[in-house]
């Protein structure tokens, strides 16, 4: 079973990612979906929302970097998992999307980073509300262990954030 970092530990990835690859197998927004835990593209969620709601705890949604938090809006609060896919690690939109999902749209499930991001971003990602990190093929389990250290690159931060809403200036004393 593929591994990922979740809540600060190595864990099994128990979710199947449904891609939107542009080939013959592309699931049309209305195509039938596999059973089990799946993470579907936003378009699929939007097209099949009503039926998918029946499967509640098995359906996660992934957003690409141009799909901002308000594309899910209040739906977010009911989902068990949202994955934000980074097309390239320099694309920082996901950091804002994550905060908004957590802070504005009441999302409390697993917030997963996937796609191309790097371990050196883990601390900031965590502060913005991500709690799961799927590096895909990038690292083996050994390397994942090492990468996990970057979650704790800093002992504190100045700003208000998801993991510490009270900014340093209110805690200095």
């Amino acid at each position, binding site marked *: 079973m593929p591994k990922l970092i979740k809540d600060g530990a190595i864990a099994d990835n128990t979710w199947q990612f449904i891609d939107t690859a542009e080939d013959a197998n592309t699931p049309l927004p209305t195509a039938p979906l596999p059973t089990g835990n799946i993470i579907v593209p936003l378009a699929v969620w939007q097209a099949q929302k009503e039926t998918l709601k029946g499967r509640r705890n098995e359906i996660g949604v992934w957003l690409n970097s141009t799909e*901002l938090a308000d594309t899910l809006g209040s739906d977010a609060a009911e989902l068990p998992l949202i994955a934000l896919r980074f097309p390239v*690690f*320099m*694309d*920082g*939109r996901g*950091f*804002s*999307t994550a*905060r908004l999902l957590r802070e*504005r749209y009441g999302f409390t499930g697993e917030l997963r980073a996937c796609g191309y991001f*790097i371990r*050196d*971003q883990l*601390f*900031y*990602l965590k*502060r*913005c509300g991500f709690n799961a990190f799927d590096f895909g093929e990038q690292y083996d389990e050994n390397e994942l262990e090492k990468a996990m250290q970057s979650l704790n*690159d*800093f*002992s*504190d*931060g*100045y*700003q*208000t*954030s998801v993991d510490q*809403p*009270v*900014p*340093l*200036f*209110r805690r*200095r004393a």
Partner: protein
Amino acid sequence: MYIYDAHDKHILRDRVAQFKSQTERYLAGELKEEEFLPLRLQNGLYVQRLAPMLRVNVPYGMLNAAQLRKLAHIARHYDKGYCHVSTRQNIQFNWPELPEVPAILAELAEVDMHATQSSGNCIRNTTSDQFAGIASDELIDPRPYCEIIRQWSSFHPEFAFLPRKFKIAVTGATSDRAAIQVHDIGLQLVQLNGETGFKVFVGGGLGRTPVIGQVVREFLPEADLLSYLDAILRVYNQLGNRENKYKARIKILVRALGVDVFTTKVEEEWQHIKDGYAKLTREEIERTQGFFTEPAYETLDAAAEESALKAVASEHKAFSKWLTRNVSEHRVPGYAAVTLSLKPTGVAPGDVTDSQLEAIADLCEQYSFGEVRTTHEQNIVMGDVKQSDLFALWEQLKALGFATPNINTLTDMICCPGGDFCSLANAKSIPIAEDLQRKFNDMDYVYDLGELDVNLSGCMNACGHHHVGNIGILGVDKKGEEFYQVQLGGNAGNDTSLGKVLGPAFTREEVPDVIQTILDVFVENRTEEELFIDTYRRMGMKPFKERVYAKAD
């Protein structure tokens, strides 16, 4: 000056350790070149034409003696014995070795200095007025707010991977010396019904599409500073162009949406967050202000000091010239601010050596409460000198080569590192500055011209602020050859304007004569009270253009 507490020190140490390990991973081949690139940039490290360049932040331009000595040590130990004051008040080292950079950063951290976010697509060092706290036209000292912004922007988890770099400037004076209208965000401290707040400009910037910032808010209460900045940055982070780096600055977004739509988006975002934890507390504002209190000024008799100074000046012509050009008034009677010119002929504008830095450290301890300021014109200011000490200080500055009486004149040019160092350059800029300094070496003529900003950039990125020079010179590449385009009519400050291109570009050899011709037109046509910019604004481009290109035929 702000002093780090245990929290600040801890966070900075974490950063130093983080970059050390990233550098080690890179050198061991565990971190790819393209992944290390933004990480090193966010720690101030560029790879330049000849060697890496390390840009060290000087937050809002303030340096103390210990920091000056540390910079001297770094210049001597890790570099070739000198460093460079940049056009954004920072210090740049041109010859560090990559494997040694983590050690340099650790040394800097010992004196509360860093290179955090001095480059890269993130929030850069906040700049301010070099006369903050001492200018007679200041309403409110901007430095405490700059420090609050520095902390908020440092390691901001949401905004480390923006579409493009992001620069903020703050002024608290009626005369804007921080060029706030050509920054991504410009903040002007204002008061309304006894309450302190900011007028907020967004979307200014130089570079290849120069734009003057637009007002998005007339009055932002000071307590809302950080939440409002968060709102602006969040709108930009989500909607800024990420496809084309030439269209990625916030000025392009503001223009694309229109300032009204942009402002509405910011205000909507802000409504959600304005009453959250980011709201500044009275205690925090006062705590930070507490670091920028007045030094122990003596009570002096202004009239007596003034006449004593006049007496000395009347006997020493050179001193008197220096007083006029390099010394500015201070809001406290009997004190003055002294600008050390880093623009003597033959030295690259803004360069300063290790032993000069140490000498400045000694002098500022002796004469100016142990602090100096760097300026975006690439000079250094001693802010709090007693008028009665000016003569003694002048003699020492002369010996050190800092007393060239040329501040704000033609030879006090702003000049980027250009083709001698910078890998982005189209053309060299430092040799042009030197050509001009050599051509215009008659100080009486230079004084007679009055205040005149000549700004040089080696390419469209405009680090030398050529758009806002009264005369701007821009290096361009024509079929692989270095040419120079001349612009006229730019101005920084309250009535910011962008220069217009005079016409076809010139060779390096032609530039000094072209500038001479432009100045001839000015001198022949000016009225008694006019500076160059006034004459240009009255007469327009035509007479300059006609004369310059007539001659070329």
